[in-house]
């Protein structure tokens, strides 16, 4: 609470509370738009405007201009002076020692303000420090003229330079100097460029005259002067460029000479933006720096459309250089657009060499379309539709935000909507992954806060507040730059051109085979046969496990934990035409199971079988349930503000159907199956027989209860000890390495479980026991359902076998 702000609030309410149209501001000592608008309304009353409104508009400006500049000794209206002084206090300047007189203190405060803005202060002593109408307007807005949290010195220098260079021009509005790149700064920059191009009436738009002018500003290394300053400023606004690594990106600094460092940065930016890499400020680079669509006529190999892709349209697309098309998988009831993929359309695209990326949009044009539950329902629907079209596991579905959401709306509604989407996709076994379609800001925030895989940026809506003043997101996959009408003989259809970054290659097929478990069983059998025939050394069972895990679970961390895989056998099996099968459908729960994770965990248990002490843990446990529990611990510590009680967190997040989590329901199934497979192989079955017993022979009907009694001794006390030991044990180098590696190195959490007090950690461990018991209970309750699912699967499997 600031007493000077409180002074302003109480005075302005007391003085103008009875004025027609006046809206009182809260008297809480905190600066905000309500206080500034109250001062504006007070000023309007003093200027003879009635009724007053909460906006500093043209009438207020023209009345002020008629009044003239206000400076040292001005005493025509003490209330107007007092409004200036209160405004200065609200902005953080010491406006006066006593209110009402424009003395030396007020003059000095205005001089400080002008200096912070980058403007000349007007002179020494009581000269200068004059409040012109333009400055008055700045005093009564919420712009900051000192660096704020998150701002940079470089951007603030540019803001001050722009203000100082153009503030006297009519079209230029003095902008904030807070060090943050925003819509206002972007507009100031554009108006400055338009003035320098000699455009008569600058408006801040990227119109034809601006485009034509910038085509003549092709600068390169060795250039210097004003245009380099403007170009370099635009570069700073788009800095850093994501590098494609986990580092923050490549930054640049503001400069007036085009040196080798600027050239290098421009080359990186051009590469990231998929422009010609020449290190020069060519027109396309200017455009890409200044507006979200860049040059809308640049080459693009992507597209999206609501129109069906018929054979002739597909041919036209191929002939015109398009390789991938975005298509809608849903058309909501009542829609007249008829935008959903048509039967046979996907095959038409694939047979013409086109790829496809799916888009899901159910209205999504206003704030009220976005809630958590709608996101959840949309994800369920999207999963069902995408499965119906046969989209393969791992396909990214772009959920649309087709309007200009503000940051407040993104935080309040869009992010919860996407949390709902993630949970809905998780409910269906995470077969599909969510991406986001929207403005740059929507895409950036949603990706950061909900883990959206890729961003499909609505760049052609360049005037969106979510595009102006925001750099393109690091995970952009498609940038929609232009909508146009295609005329192909007598056929016409609308098409959006999308620049493609390449991180999402799109889908070139659907219905990839081997989804059901019988396909997986056959696959393991074939692999096992190759392993038996392999002339090199190695246990065939282990070779099979290693082969299936080697791509996704074969890094140095796994080498350290359970040993490296046999790369000669990988070459051998590849040579026999084998490849890694990534997933299959569980015949009991109908969940998608990850074959690589399953075999990595089985491999861990197989080579590092459970210790003789039932309460001890080892590397095999880390490869299975233990690693997942350590990762869940990371999630809990990150959410500890929301979930101070670890037990509640685990109960809500671990192995829970429909909840997105690092230790999801699939993970627990895979952990249990992995332990059962390892045990079966250690007991003398081959891996092929073990897989067959588990998925065809009904072994999976009791997977959780057998896992619980086998690995956790079937009692809660031992299970809790095991959970405690995997989190804190200090007597096994590999377990310690996993604790540090997963919690601190990978998870970024400095507080290892062993450093947490027992009272804090114990509920988390108890939560683990609760969930394990709950899952065994659920297994018993749902046995009839699982048996029915299994019967159905076996019948289908027999039918498939008969067809072959």
């Amino acid at each position, binding site marked *: 609470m600031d007493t000077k702000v409180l002074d302003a609030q109480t005075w302005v309410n007391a003085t103008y509370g009875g004025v027609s149209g006046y809206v009182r501001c809260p008297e809480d000592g905190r600066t905000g738009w309500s206080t500034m608008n109250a001062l504006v309304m007070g000023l309007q009353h003093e200027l003879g405007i009635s009724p007053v409104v909460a906006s500093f508009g043209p009438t207020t400006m023209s009345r002020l201009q008629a009044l003239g500049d206000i400076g040292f000794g001005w005493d025509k209206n003490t209330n107007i002076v007092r409004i200036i002084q209160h405004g200065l206090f609200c902005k953080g300047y010491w406006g006066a020692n006593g209110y009402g007189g424009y003395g030396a203190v007020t003059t000095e405060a205005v001089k400080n303000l002008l200096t912070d803005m980058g403007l000349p202060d007007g002179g020494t002593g009581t000269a200068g420090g004059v409040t012109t109408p333009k400055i008055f307007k700045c005093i009564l807005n919420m712009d900051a003229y000192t660096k704020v949290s998150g701002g940079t010195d470089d951007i603030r220098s540019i803001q001050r330079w722009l203000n100082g260079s153009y503030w006297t021009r009519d079209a230029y509005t003095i902008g904030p100097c807070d060090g943050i790149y925003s819509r206002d700064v972007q507009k100031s920059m554009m108006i400055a460029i338009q003035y320098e191009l000699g455009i008569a009436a600058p408006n801040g738009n990227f119109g034809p005259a601006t485009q034509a002018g910038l085509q003549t500003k092709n600068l390169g290394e060795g250039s210097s002067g004003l245009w380099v300053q403007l170009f370099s400023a635009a570069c700073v606004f788009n800095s850093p460029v994501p590098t*494609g*690594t*986990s*580092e923050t990106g490549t930054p640049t600094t503001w400069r007036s000479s085009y040196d080798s460092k600027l050239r290098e940065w421009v080359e990186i930016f051009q590469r990231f933006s998929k422009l010609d890499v020449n290190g020069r400020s060519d027109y396309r680079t200017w455009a890409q720096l200044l507006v979200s669509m860049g040059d809308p006529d640049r080459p693009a190999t992507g597209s999206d459309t609501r129109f069906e892709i018929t054979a002739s349209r597909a041919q036209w697309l191929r002939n015109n250089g398009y390789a991938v098309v975005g298509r809608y998988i849903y058309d909501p009831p009542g829609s007249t657009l008829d935008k959903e993929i048509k039967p046979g359309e996907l095959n038409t695209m694939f047979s013409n060499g086109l790829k496809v990326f799916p888009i899901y949009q159910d209205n999504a044009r206003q704030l009220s379309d976005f809630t958590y539950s709608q996101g959840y329902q949309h994800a369920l629907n999207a999963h069902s539709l995408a499965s119906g079209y046969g989209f393969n596991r*791992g396909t*990214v579905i772009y959920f649309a935000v087709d309007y200009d959401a503000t940051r407040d709306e993104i935080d309040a509604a869009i992010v919860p909507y996407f949390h709902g989407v993630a949970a809905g996709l998780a409910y269906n076994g995470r077969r599909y*992954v969510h991406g986001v379609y929207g403005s740059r800001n929507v895409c950036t925030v949603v*990706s*950061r806060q909900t*883990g*959206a*895989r*890729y961003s499909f940026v609505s760049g052609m809506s360049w005037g969106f507040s979510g595009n102006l003043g925001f750099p393109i997101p*690091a*995970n952009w*996959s498609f940038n929609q730059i232009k909508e146009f009408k295609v005329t192909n003989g007598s056929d016409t259809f609308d098409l959006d051109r999308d620049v493609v970054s390449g*991180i*999402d*290659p799109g889908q070139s097929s659907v219905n990839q085979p081997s989804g059901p478990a019988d396909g997986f069983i056959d696959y393991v059998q074939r692999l096992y046969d190759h392993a038996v025939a392999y002339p090199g050394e190695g246990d065939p069972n282990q070779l099979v496990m290693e082969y299936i895990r*080697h*791509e*996704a*679970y*074969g*890094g*140095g*961390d*796994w*080498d*350290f*934990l359970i040993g*490296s*895989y046999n*790369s000669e056998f*990988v070459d051998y099996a590849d040579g026999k035409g084998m*490849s*890694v099968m*990534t997933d299959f459908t569980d015949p009991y729960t109908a969940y998608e199971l990850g074959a690589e*994770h399953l075999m990595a965990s089985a491999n861990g248990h197989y080579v590092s079988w459970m*210790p003789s002490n039932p309460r*001890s843990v*080892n590397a095999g446990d*880390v*490869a299975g349930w233990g*690693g997942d529990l350590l*990762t869940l611990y990371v999630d809990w510590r990150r959410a500890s503000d929301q979930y101070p009680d670890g037990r509640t967190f685990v109960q809500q997040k671990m192995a829970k159907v429909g909840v997105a989590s*690092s230790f999801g329901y699939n993970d627990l199934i895979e952990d249990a199956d992995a332990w059962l497979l390892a045990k079966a192989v250690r007991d003398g079955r081959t891996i092929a027989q073990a897989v067959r017993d588990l998925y065809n022979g009904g072994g999976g009907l009791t997977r959780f209860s057998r896992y619980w009694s086998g690995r956790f001794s079937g009692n809660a006390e031992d299970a809790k000890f095991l959970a405690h030991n995997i989190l804190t044990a*200090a*007597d*096994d*180098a590999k377990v*310690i*390495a*996993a604790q*540090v*590696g*997963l919690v601190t*190195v*990978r*998870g970024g959490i400095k507080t290892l479980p062993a450093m947490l007090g027992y009272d804090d950690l114990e509920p988390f461990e108890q939560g683990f026991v609760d969930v394990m018991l709950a899952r065994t209970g659920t297994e018993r309750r749902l046995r009839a359902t699982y048996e029915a699912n299994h019967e159905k699967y076996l019948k289908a499997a027999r039918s498939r076998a008969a067809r072959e």
Partner: protein
Amino acid sequence: MNAVSALAAIALPPLLLAVFVLSLWKTARGLSARRWERPGWWAFPAVVLTGLGCVAWFAGVFSGGLDTREACASRGAGYDEAYRSEYWREPSRWFPLHNKCNAGFDLVPAWVNPTLVAIALLLVGCAAGAVTTAVIGRKKSEKPD
């Protein structure tokens, strides 16, 4: 795990840490007191460098956190199965360390590999320093009074 190996596992980390801290202290102290002129002193910076190298290597190796798909998803990077399939040997190489989600995104922090190279070079420097000071010391001792 038997009692002896369990005891060793418990005792080893603090022992290694103590050796590292001692070497760090000896290195710092030796620099100001010109102890680097003695060949034996070079063992201390070598221990410090080896320790730092192990930390850097560990950070690189565990960047995928046992589940590369999840690590990539948490960074907003796509897991490209085709890329991983083509470059399957890459994540298990000891040097340079890489664990890429796709052609453009590496989970291994960019500082890891240059740090490992720098440490290797500095270790060679330590060995050279020890040999040089030993030769100079021998020559000095062989000089007639």
